[in-house]
């Protein structure tokens, strides 16, 4: 077994934790430790997945890459770039040590998400260790697989509470030949409308944002298709566009600098602005909105829920109320699913919700 394949050791640790009913805190590159709640429990043992690393297989002509969970995202992106391909969901790193496992466990996606799909959308399969220490394989390395429940995509966004991700197979795509970002001044309602109108037209839209009174639109595709956009869409060409979109993705634009309390608000793309005080930044055609506000947690949650969305508190608050509470029926389904995968409750307890 290669030195960077820690399957056996990780499985033994989970089995021991299951036998002793001692909770595990799963850690990869630790770049997303601030996201969500803190794992809770007495005598927490750290399960370090970062050493379980390396690209298992990469077949550019099949558009499929499989890598171990501890593989740095940067290493994967470099291997793909060498073959002219990329991770289509443009994942945020939120730190130099970001790993594939953490990215999938948090289901984090970047600016291209509304037009290409989310991290979850590109998951084809994975190996996991469940809470009983069993090694399981769901999905596979093929685009289509409807045998059995889709437990692989269920792992995306589960924050390690249903299983320890060992490796993930992803669908990848070619790097677009060309890109272009256009900027124009716009009010928030006008920007929201234009982002959504354009998304309904056959143009190669690949990112959209409204920042500080300006609408940013990125187009990506064949050279000729991108060139044609200039004739159809108004706006000035943004010169250092790559830096802008990367800074947005990494929450490094000035907007994010002095955030006492930063909210990620997910809403139906065309939803009206929630009536909340504070500063806003919009992206994803309006489906992801960032808010800096002095409003109370209850106020934010109520306003967002009324519009059919949910709110995640990234900074500020006590850390105990990161995610929108679930309605009773869904909460019961969550508890039963947790029981199904992790009957002893040892995998990242409390990381997502208290009691999960």
């Amino acid at each position, binding site marked *: 077994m290669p030195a960077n394949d820690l399957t056996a050791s990780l499985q033994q640790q989970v089995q021991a934790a299951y036998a002793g009913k001692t909770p595990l805190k799963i850690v990869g590159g630790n770049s997303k430790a601030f996201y969500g709640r803190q794992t809770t429990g007495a005598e927490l043992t750290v399960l370090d997945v970062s050493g379980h690393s390396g690209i298992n297989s990469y*077949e*550019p*002509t*099949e558009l499929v890459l499989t890598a171990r969970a501890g593989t740095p995202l940067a290493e994967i992106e470099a291997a793909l770039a060498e073959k002219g391909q990329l991770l289509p969901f443009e994942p945020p790193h939120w730190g130099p040590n970001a790993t594939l496992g953490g990215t999938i466990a948090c*289901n984090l996606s970047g600016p291209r*998400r*509304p037009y290409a799909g*989310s991290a*979850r*959308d590109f998951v084809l399969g994975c190996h996991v260790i*469940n809470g009983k220490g*069993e*090694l*399981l*394989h*769901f999905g*596979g*390395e*093929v*685009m*289509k*697989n*409807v*045998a*059995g*429940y*889709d*437990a692989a*995509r*269920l792992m995306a*966004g*589960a924050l390690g509470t*249903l299983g320890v991700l060992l490796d993930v197979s992803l669908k990848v*795509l*070619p790097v677009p030949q060309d890109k272009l970002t256009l900027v124009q001044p716009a009010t928030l309602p006008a920007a929201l409308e234009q982002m959504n109108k354009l*998304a*309904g*037209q*056959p143009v190669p839209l690949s990112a959209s944002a409204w920042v500080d009174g300006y609408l940013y639109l990125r187009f990506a595709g*064949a050279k*000729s*298709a991108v060139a*044609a956009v200039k004739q159809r869409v108004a706006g000035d060409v943004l010169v250092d566009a790559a830096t802008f979109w990367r800074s947005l993705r990494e929450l490094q634009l000035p907007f994010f600098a002095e955030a006492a309390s930063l909210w990620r608000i*997910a*809403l*139906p793309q*065309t939803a009206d602005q929630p009536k909340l005080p504070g500063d806003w930044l919009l992206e994803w055609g309006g489906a992801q909105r960032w808010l800096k506000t002095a409003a109370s947690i209850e106020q934010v949650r109520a306003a967002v829920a009324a519009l*059919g969305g*949910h709110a*995640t508190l990234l900074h500020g608050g006590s850390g105990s109320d990161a995610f929108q*509470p679930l*309605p009773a*029926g869904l909460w019961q*389904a*969550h508890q039963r*699913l947790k*029981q*199904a*995968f992790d009957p002893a409750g040892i995998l990242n307890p409390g990381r997502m*919700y208290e009691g999960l």
Partner: protein
Amino acid sequence: MSQHGCEHDHVPVIGKAELVAQLLQLLPADCVLFEEEDLRPYECDGLSAYRQLPWVTVLPQSVGQVQAVMRLCHQHRLPVVARGAGTGLSGGALPHPNGVLLSLAKLKSILAIDTLARTARVQPGVRNLAISQAASQYGLYYAPDPSSQIACTIGGNVAENSGGVHCLKYGLTVHNILQIKLVTIEGDLLVVGSEALDSAGYDLLALMTGSEGMLGVIVEVTVRLLPVPEKAKVMLAAFDDVEKAGAAVGAIIAAGVIPGGLEMMDKLSIGAAEDFAHAGYPRDAEAILLCELDGTCEEVAEQVEQVQAILKDIGATEVRLARDEQERALLWKGRKSAFPAVGRLSPDYYCMDGTIPRRHLPFVLRRIGELSQQYGLAVANVFHAGDGNLHPLILYDANKPGELANAEEFGSKILELCVEVGGSITGEHGVGMEKINQMCVQYDSAELTQFHAIKHAFDPQGLLNPGKAVPTLHRCAEFGAMHVHDGKLPFPELERF
């Protein structure tokens, strides 16, 4: 009629007459069917080799009525099998002899289309194609297009995670829906997903999509709509060697082009389709590729040139670009009628649905050829080449004693071959009743136990579509014992390939 049925461990605790009387309290008289002649149309789905009359069929007209029926079934511990249009090809809607067949056919309204947000909210009985037709006036469409799209309904599409010929570029059902409303076995209404792009908590939308009616009954779906591409061009390439056709697919993708559709047919399929559709397919070719490029006018023009050059480089004996919309439709007609066309070659055919990593195509086709010799049954191959989904069509005659069983055994060998090379026993048709034994080959006992635990989380009494999709370990043990006979290892120590 074959021996396959559900595992009948549900002994009804209520008489049929009493059940009908109670259902008639909940539904109008014409929505409760219980006479044999009325039940006959529901005895099978698209996999007609498997037949079973349901005890009772109900056709609720509202979500409230679905909830009421579910509460009643839950109270009496009666199995419930949900059914859409009944076009499924894996026996997923095969009725239970002591259960209620729940047809969603009367819930067929398009509730709302939001053109700016590009979404449609529809009831489960709305036909797949009807969504695109309703959206077309706004320049929008619903991307997944299973070949049964004229008849199949969106509720069934979600339950099966249906695909189609455009999956490589536009994804499966799971990638194209935002929210579902689901009635649990207890009769509660759950909203899963949202009209935003994500929701708090676990991704139950992914879990429910493709769950084959085992976890709940879908009563509403919100789908994403996409702008209709400005331009679509299709070209046909002929090859004197299947291996070259496979290499051409890899070369197109490696060049950075993602075609909207990329289909391959082998010689037997080409001949059958040509006899049927007169699409001008070259009969002497060993394989043809149909490659559709879509996008903006500029992009399509650029990619057409690029792909033509690649095809010629690989050694295509002919590359033909459809000159107009009429020729494009004709080239597709040949492919889309491949199943009925092959059907004319033989009294019956059995359609398989395995997926494989595409690089193994030449090996898999060679093995299928050998198996075809061994079983004495011809096979025609149609292949969603872009996404590795192979549909071998096994030709047989059900009137010849033993030939169906022979075809089924041949089919199961093909599926096991797909698993052996790292693929799956089903790409888009689902497991249902048909591939329940092959699940024992693709998954080991720990994985199957995990699936049962998921099922138990939503349906602890096992009332929803019992006996389908996930085999019991007992069944696998029996199936494994059968394999010992062939010199293979028994379950659960069955080796994973």
